[in-house]
């Protein structure tokens, strides 16, 4: 990317990209792809873009196992050389009643998955601490939100 192009991107207006998809592990790749694109437009170098892709993937892990019933909404905001990403898990209506009964085998598998996700979550926090400028989580309007901010040149 040449200097003129770089300057053009950094001084252009704020950009917002919103994507939403079913809360399935198969779709998180879409969020990573979007992260790479908006990271490039913020002037991040290739290593920083790799970090942003991984960090955006890790946001989806904040919520525990994805069940395919809820949905994930990502909001990417580029403001100059800074990218902010908010990931919201939207619960599916009637989800609890739909999943009210589980047989023993499913319960064992579910507990094993939960342990795995708890371990992944611990690793995820360590990674996010290093990959981005800041990150956190909150409850907004009853929905779980995980967010991150990455500024160019802070790797």
């Amino acid at each position, binding site marked *: 990317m040449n200097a003129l192009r770089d300057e053009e991107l950094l001084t252009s207006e704020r950009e917002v990209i919103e994507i939403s998809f079913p809360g399935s592990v198969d779709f998180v790749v879409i969020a990573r792809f979007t992260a790479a694109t908006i990271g490039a437009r913020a002037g991040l170098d290739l290593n920083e873009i790799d970090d942003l892709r*991984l960090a955006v993937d890790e946001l989806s892990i904040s919520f525990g196992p994805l069940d395919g019933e809820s949905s994930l909404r990502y909001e990417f905001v580029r403001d100059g050389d800074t990218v902010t990403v908010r990931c919201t898990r939207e619960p599916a209506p009637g989800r609890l009643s739909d999943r009210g009964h589980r047989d023993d085998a499913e319960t064992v598998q579910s507990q094993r998955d939960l342990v795995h996700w708890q371990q992944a979550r611990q*690793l995820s926090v360590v990674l996010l601490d290093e990959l981005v400028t800041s990150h956190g989580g909150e409850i907004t309007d009853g929905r779980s939100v995980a967010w991150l901010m990455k500024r160019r040149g802070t790797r």
Partner: protein
Amino acid sequence: MPRGGHSPDHSDGAHGVQHGGRIDDLPVLEATGELDLAVAPWLRDQIDALFADGARSLVVDLSGATFLDSTALGVLVGAVNTSKERGGRIHLVVTEPQILRVLSITGLSGAFSLHEGRAEVLGARTER
């Protein structure tokens, strides 16, 4: 091909986990592409199957992998724990800098026996 299944030997060309033969007496798993939360269950199933067959140590060849997130890393950490209980170790073949960075950030580089190629695994075993 859907990425969410749990087939015993899984590969869709771009992302996958499959048996990669043996190095000496060590079973090898090849994991390619982006190892994320969609691939992690397949990786875990393959590793579990090798342990169920009696393996103490494994080689996980990540030379074709370009991405590793915390869920896939967690599976590998689980393999380290199982292997340790059996007196074995997990050999990782890693060439991708971003994957090495993930191992470094999480402080887990030392948990594995890291190699730049399969030949190095054999060399490391011969030296001992």
